[in-house]
Structure formats: C-alpha cells, structure tokens
C-alpha cells in the first residue's frame, strides 16, 4: 500500500474538513476559546454540515430554552412546544449544508422555528392553553412564597390566554422581540416584513396585549 493510500484511509475528506473548520477561526477572533457565541454557532453548524452530528449538541444546549419558551408561549402547551423544538433541531440538521453565515444563526434558527410553528397552527385545531407549573418559569424566584406561586401561575395563564387571541404574526413579533437576541431588522426578516412594517405590527400587538391582559396590582 502506498503512503498516499494509507493516508487517505486514515484521513477521510470529512474528517479533514472538520479539522480545517475547527482551526480556521474567523478573522478578529481568538483561537484560544474567546470566540463570540455567534461565531461558535457558525463553527458548530459548519461542523454539522461537514458530517459531524455531535456538533449539534452545543447548539441544542444554547438554544433549547429560547426555542422552547418561544413555542410554549406561541402554542400555550409545553408538550407541543417540546415536539416543535425537536422538529426544529431535526430540520436544522437537515438544512445545515444550505446555511449561509451572512445572517445571524439565531435569525436563521427562528425563521425555521416560525415555519414549523405556522405549519403546526395550520395543521391543528385550537386547543385550550395549559400553563406550566410556576416553578418551571424563570420569572419566579426559587424561594417564592405559596401566594407568589399562585399569583405567578394565574398571571401565566392569563398571559397565555391573551397571546392566543393575537394573530400569529403579532404574537410571533412579540415573542421574537422578547427573546432578546434579535435586532428589529432580523425579526423583520424572520417574519418576512419590512422593518417599518414590523414597528406597526409590534405597536398593534402591544396595544392588543395590554387590552387583553388584565393589569392588576
């Protein structure tokens, strides 16, 4: 066996690409691990596209809770939110090769998530909301009193019910804004509207939510 054949049998093209991706840090970043999270996301997705499914794990760890929260508030059901979150990661894996890093990873991820959400909303009939236990919400302190837990559960149920009354676009606009990681331009791109149109949608959504959500001290 020649040396070249022996090397080729040890170093597969996929593995070589994986090493190149791992070492080719984008300009302006430190290779010693001080990369921005966004660069980490891009690097992980490149590795996924190169055939390394394990690279999906850091993306899952970083984005599972924002995605779950988005779906949970959009659908009002935690089991449905978990289904859609897993479907979204499945789709991310299958679409990894088509990803172009000219956009933020989170914008791409939430575009896929909204696509899944709209598909689900078209498919299913309206269901009653099922709020999670207040302990599952990050809002409530761990050592909250029983009265505060009851109040938090009540508010969460009212919030979910109010959100269900909004049109899907307004609801998604609010939830994507609340996710906190996306700029208005990116949210507008995710929703497929212009930025000025997004401002109008957000204004109407906030107004509708406040009128639907009973503000009580």
């Amino acid at each position: 066996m020649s040396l070249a054949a022996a090397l080729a049998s040890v170093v597969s093209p996929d593995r070589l690409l994986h090493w190149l991706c791992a070492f080719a840090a984008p300009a302006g970043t430190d290779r010693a691990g001080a990369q921005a999270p966004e660069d980490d996301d891009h690097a992980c997705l490149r590795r996924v596209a190169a055939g390394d499914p394990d690279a999906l794990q850091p993306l899952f760890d970083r984005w599972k809770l924002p995605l779950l929260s988005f779906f949970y508030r959009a659908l009002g059901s935690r089991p449905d939110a978990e289904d859609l979150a897993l479907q979204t990661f499945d789709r991310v894996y299958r679409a990894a090769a088509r990803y172009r890093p000219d956009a933020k990873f989170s914008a791409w991820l939430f575009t896929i998530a909204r696509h899944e959400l709209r598909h689900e909303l078209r498919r299913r009939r309206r269901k009653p909301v099922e709020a999670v236990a207040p302990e599952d919400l990050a809002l409530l302190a761990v050592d909250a009193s029983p009265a505060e837990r009851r109040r938090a559960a009540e508010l969460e149920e009212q919030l979910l019910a109010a959100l269900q009354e909004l049109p899907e676009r307004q609801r998604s606009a609010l939830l994507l804004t609340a996710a906190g990681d996306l700029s208005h331009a990116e949210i507008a791109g995710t929703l497929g509207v212009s930025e000025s149109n997004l401002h109008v949608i957000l204004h109407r959504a906030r107004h509708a939510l406040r009128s639907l959500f009973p503000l009580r001290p």
Partner: protein
Amino acid sequence: MKSPDNSATPHDPEVLLRSGLRDTTPEFEHRWTTLKRRLRTKPVPRRSYAPGWWWGLVSAGITFAVILFVLRPQYPAPRPMPIAELAAYEELFRLEDELHPALPLSENTMLDDLLAMPTPSLDPS
C-alpha cells in the same frame, strides 16, 4: 432570561414575556438523545447548487418530451373511401348539380309573383 432577585411577580405582560422556561424536562432530554442517535445514522443532505424549482422545471420538460416523442399515440392514417361506396352518392351529386341553378330562379320567380299579386280588397261586398 434570568431570575429576578426580588420575589415579587411583575404584572407587565412585556416583562412576563421576557421570562421563559427555567429548564427542560428529563423526557425532553431523553427524546433529544434518541433524536441525536437517529441523526447519527443518516448523513447530512449535501448542498444542492441548483435551486429547488430548477429540478421541477427539468423534470417537467423531460416528462413533456417523453409524452410528445415517445408515448404519443400512433394513429393510422385515414383510409380512403372505396370507389364502390362513392358510386352510391353519384345520383345525389347529379341531382344536386341539376337542381342547384334552379333554386335562385325559383326564389326570384316567387318574389316577382308575390310583388305582382293584386292587393286583396278589404271590402267584404
């Protein structure tokens, strides 16, 4: 999405919206592990350099060409009518030739006759 330090629950819906789920459930993590194991068995679909609709256009063109040039029904050319059957119409053709010039004459004659008719008197006596 951090826990607030104070234990009071805010009532502003926008603040509530910013607060997401605290953690995932063990069932969800288990399902993720199962999904990841399944994904390991199937390779990532490679990037296609042609847009999705292009393949549809090409396959539609190929289908059209196959229907037009391969599967087109091969009808036989129309067979000319035998001479013996044509003879049966000969009498009709002859009658047509003889009667055709008479039609305009008949119509004109009728018209002249109608115009030359005396006006009927309305007087009953």
